[in-house]
């Protein structure tokens, strides 16, 4: 081994092979039904379906995702059809969320807005996931100077308040749904890098990783087949949590006026434009906001249930 292997710590720790019970001592244990981790997780998932809170949250999130994917299934009115005679109507059976200053059905607009908002949040989490996980894996798996360098970079990014980092990025690349998504993604990326690194550091000292390396697997193979699949649990929980964070952040940025240009409307834009009529028609800003709150709360609830499952 002239060039130092990438995963030096693994070899170092293999000086102390963990004591494995011999097959004779193991005889009694073998009778126990062996359940794979996957099976246990499915059982856990099935258990969680018995919790009413979780089911409710999951149903609402499915509804939101459906609204984002096929908005025309879930609305009766055209979100862009104006009607002067029906402007600023309070919520009723005909118009669930009321109508806005141009007589457009607010419920249809919220449903339609979910396409852009969910897209932005998904893109943001995607960017953060890809960037953060690669940085985290690089940092945790390679270690040494690379690790130090990446982690100092992450520290610097964490020192910039997330929204202000987003504002700087938006100033540079302009307004719209995608710039907002990129800005939000960059804001939550450091968290992913840290979590992934911590997980990779934990997993790479486990006996089966050592065994794989001793068995002759290359660093890349060990990483892909052993370290990554076993590190992604906490990352998945973080992704679910940060999906909610991304929705709030994207709504905040479009509330500040940096989102898609009208008449297209994201949730944040709807809330912001409803503000002008808050005195006379409070539902215009409050109901789209309530929709955002429900979505985020649902996501947080699911993430917390997942966290319990993975423990």
């Amino acid at each position, binding site marked *: 081994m002239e060039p130092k292997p990438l995963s030096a710590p693994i070899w170092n720790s293999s000086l102390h092979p963990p004591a494995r019970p011999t097959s004779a001592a193991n005889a009694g244990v073998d009778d126990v039904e062996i359940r794979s981790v996957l099976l246990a997780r499915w059982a856990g998932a099935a258990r969680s379906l018995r919790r009413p809170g979780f089911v409710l949250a999951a149903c609402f999130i499915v509804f939101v995702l459906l609204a984002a994917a096929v908005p025309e299934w879930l609305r009766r009115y055209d979100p862009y059809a104006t009607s002067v005679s029906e402007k600023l109507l309070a919520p009723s059976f005909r118009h669930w969320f009321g109508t806005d200053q141009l007589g457009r059905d607010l419920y249809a607009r919220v449903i339609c807005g979910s396409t852009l908002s969910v897209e932005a949040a998904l893109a943001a989490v995607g960017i953060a996931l890809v960037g953060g996980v690669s940085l985290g894996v690089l940092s945790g798996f390679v270690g040494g100077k690379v690790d130090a360098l990446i982690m100092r970079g992450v520290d610097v990014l964490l020192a910039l308040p997330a929204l202000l980092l987003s504002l700087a990025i938006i100033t540079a690349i302009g307004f719209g749904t995608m710039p907002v998504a990129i800005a939000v993604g960059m804001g939550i990326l450091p968290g992913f890098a840290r979590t992934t690194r911590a997980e990779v550091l934990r997993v790479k000292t486990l006996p089966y990783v050592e065994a794989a390396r001793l068995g002759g697997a290359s660093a890349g193979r060990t990483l892909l087949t052993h370290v990554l699949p076993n590190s992604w649990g906490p990352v998945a929980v973080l992704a679910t949590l940060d999906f909610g964070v991304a929705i709030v952040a994207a709504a905040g940025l479009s509330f500040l006026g940096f989102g898609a240009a009208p008449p297209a409307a994201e949730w944040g834009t709807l809330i912001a434009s409803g503000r002008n009529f808050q005195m006379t028609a409070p539902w215009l800003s409050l109901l789209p906001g309530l929709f955002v709150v429900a979505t*985020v709360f649902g996501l947080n609830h699911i993430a917390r249930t997942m966290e319990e499952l993975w423990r």
Partner: protein
Amino acid sequence: MTRYILGRIAQAFLVLWGAYTVAYLILYLLPSDSLTILLTASGVEIDTLSKTDLAKARHYYGLEHGALDQYLRLLWGALHGDFGVSLTKGVSVSSLLAQRFPHTLALAASAVTLSILEGLGFAYLVAALRWVRIRQALQRLPALASSVPVFWSGLLAIQIFAFGLGWLPSSGNEGFAALVLPAWTLSLPSAAIYAQVLLRKFSDVWKEPYITTARAKGLSRAQTQWRHALRNAALPMLTLVGLQVGNTVSGAVLVETVFGRVGLGRLAQEAVLRQDVPVVLAVVAVSAAVFVLVNLLVDLLYPMLDPRIARAQRVG
């Protein structure tokens, strides 16, 4: 100990320098043509300018000597408190900052104080409750509160307390009454996090042997809670408060917009809308500085408040 303090201070300044550099890279090097952005922000159409005018503009914005030179000059200026001139307002950025900073400071400081009081009070109340049902219901409240975006809770607060009940003004900067709703709105997300962490800490601390000892000595539940549980649970809060300053600064941008207050956050929002690059850079730098300094302070205070840490360091 001195070494630790000096090292920590040096590290804080390094991080601050890094943050400034990152903000500079994003704002000046990410756009393909920063001159267009700068000129458009100043209200000049780039097509109407002749070659000589363009060269003059390039010189004015310090773009003619390349990025490194520009960066060094900006950094040198920032170190001396000179952040250049606002593109849209035509006044120096430092005077804008000086004018807006006190308003945001008042808002953020009252929000941080309120959030600590709310978080502590709530956790204390829930820990003191003996009725399990209510307790379980209340324990879920912080999680709910932390998923409410500040711009929405702000609008709700305006709707209820300003328009509905008419107790407090819905917007403005003047006086204490105008500060109440914004500060309360801004304090909620942090308070929710403090309450969650404290509740978990309380339940952990109550399992510790020294609690049993305290109870065995004859201290009442309330006394034990106050003297032992609270003190041990409250220390990690300090770190958390430092970290939450970042969220408070972020929240201030939204809250100031919702309540129509004058402040750094509003300044940032307007600057981004008009692509006023020097102002954005300055606000980002100032908020990063506040965040880094508060956390430095927390780290330096920690050994003073927790003798266990100070002693451990002396030994090591």
